[in-house]
């Protein structure tokens, strides 16, 4: 077998052994990589893609085109909640619900910064438990772009998708008579030609980077497929293969 076709773990035994040549080989391989650098929920950028979309799942390409995802550079978040406001106004989110939220973690004993903000939203999972659970396909994975959508007229309001979601990303919207959730602003913006989500556009600190994970020229592709900074996902153990990536810097 030619070196190019060898499994990455055979090419790279330890992170410190990565030569520039190896690194270039590694990046060229794209999804032909496995998570050789880390375990747990934090892993290298290249392995982030591989961990979320395991080696044997998508050998040569991402399943959607565009494959929408969001990279959240979590240490940049100042908790201003402008993203939440933008989401509410663009998507008519009622006062009792939310599509995206900023969580706050306090670490009183930490040196320096004592607070951390963690934006959360629907993870547009590749293997969404909500979609599996819905009895009438009122929620479904869009075949083109991978966004987990709602077909409101079908929703029976059984709320099993709310129980199934590992990310608490759903609520019952009285006004719509259906479950409501983040659709990456597909209905209000993307389907009308706008390229970015409302929350990402409103963020003054460029925390939320939205884009196409299948496009090597896209920012999200570059952020996820870099080696220097760790990238992770939330609740990896739920096995839903989320498309919201977290990183610092």
């Amino acid at each position, binding site marked *: 077998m030619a070196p190019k076709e060898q499994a990455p773990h055979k090419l790279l035994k330890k992170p410190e052994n990565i030569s520039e040549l190896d690194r270039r080989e590694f990046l060229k391989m794209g999804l032909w990589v496995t998570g050789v650098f880390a375990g747990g929920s934090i892993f290298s950028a290249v392995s982030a893609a591989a961990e979320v979309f395991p080696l044997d799942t998508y050998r040569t390409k991402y399943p959607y085109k565009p494959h929408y995802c969001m990279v959240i550079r979590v240490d940049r978040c100042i908790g201003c909640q402008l993203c939440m406001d933008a989401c509410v106004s663009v998507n008519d989110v009622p006062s009792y619900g939310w599509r995206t939220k900023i969580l706050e973690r306090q670490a009183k004993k930490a040196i320096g910064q004592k607070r951390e903000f963690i934006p959360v939203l629907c993870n547009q999972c590749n293997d969404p438990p909500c979609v599996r659970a819905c009895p009438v396909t009122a929620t479904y994975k869009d075949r083109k772009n991978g966004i987990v959508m709602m077909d409101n007229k079908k929703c029976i309001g059984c709320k099993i998708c709310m129980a199934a979601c590992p990310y608490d990303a759903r609520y*019952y919207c009285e006004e719509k008579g259906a479950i409501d959730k983040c659709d990456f602003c597909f209905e209000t913006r993307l389907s009308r030609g706008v390229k970015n989500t409302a929350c990402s556009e409103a963020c003054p600190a460029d925390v939320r980077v939205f884009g196409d994970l299948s496009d090597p020229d896209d920012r999200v592709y570059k952020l996820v497929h870099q080696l220097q900074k760790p990238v992770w996902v939330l609740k990896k153990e739920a096995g839903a293969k989320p498309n919201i990536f977290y990183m610092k810097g």
Partner: protein
Amino acid sequence: MESLENLSLTDHLKSAAVRVLSGGPVYLTFLCLMGILFITGVAFGIHSVYIEGSRHAYGTSREVPLAMLIATYAFFVIISTGLCMVSSIGHIFGVASFQPIAKRAVLLSVITICSGFLVIGLELENPFRLAIYLFLSPNFTSNIWWMGVLYSFEVVLLIIEFILLMLDRHRASTVAGLLGIIFGIAAISNLGGVFAMLNGREFWYGSYLPIFFIASAVLMGSAAVVFFTVIAHWVRREPLGEAMRDSLAAVSRLAGLMLAVVMFLTIWRMVTLTVGGTHESMVYKAFVSGAFAFNFWVFEVSLGMIIPFILLVLTRGRSVGLSFVAALLIIFCAFFMRLDMVVAGQIVPMYWELGVKEYARLNTYFPTWHEIFVVLGGVGLSGAAFLLGEKVFDGLGEA
């Protein structure tokens, strides 16, 4: 049967109405009470979903979306499948001592499944869409879709089985009953799967619930047979015959056996929780010493398992009165078992591990009066339909 066949439908209805009206003051009082409960429950449910909005009327929330009404639905359909299974022991598998209770068990199975449908119908936000999109837009990977289909088949088969039993067509009723029990077991284990296949919920996830539901169904079915058969004889103001006494003793012994199985399953469930992940150990603490401790130790363990087990074992099912008390306790406490199971799966916040302040406390749930009345509506439907059934079908052909 000959005399029955010679009567017209109108004559049948007239004689049924006469039997109901001549049931005596106690019977009629209970019938009215159950009817009122049913109507009140339906009114509360309609008001909750279509007027006030379930967000205001029910105690469910974004964090705890499934609660008392889902638990009640599970309670009723588990009883229903259990009744179907217990009835099959006699009239399908030929165990003589279970044959006298078969007709009543099948009728009660139909009645309790209808109560389950009523309660879930008043829980769903858009139940009418279900009737359309269950067929037009099915999701074969969804447990709820399968639940809808399997229970629909089961209820139809149970009705056919009951009609055939009343017409004394035993061979045909056996076929319908066998199919009914296959669909029933598939449905009840699939109901467990509704919860067990949510891998984001550690307490529910795994193969435990589908198995537990089947064992629990047989327990509930046998308890329900004892409970309702005794009441049926009070309604008829006739003592239990020898055959029925023997039958109830056999059913009581089955209840005792299944109670032992349920107790062991519960013990091992609790033991395995102690070595589970974060969520599971938190649920364990909630059961042992937290929010569910009273329900667990008083209703589930003491009144729902230990006391009825002692009653059933000591009497070996020979005391109808004590079996009746044990059955009543088993049925009443199973409601709390279902409620605790449903709510406990949702008490640990989804982002608990992040240590963020928004998800720093366990989720809570407390039922509203609207929910309680909907539950009572389901009880009222079962109670009223049972009391009517005893008179309309004239004691279900018992000698």
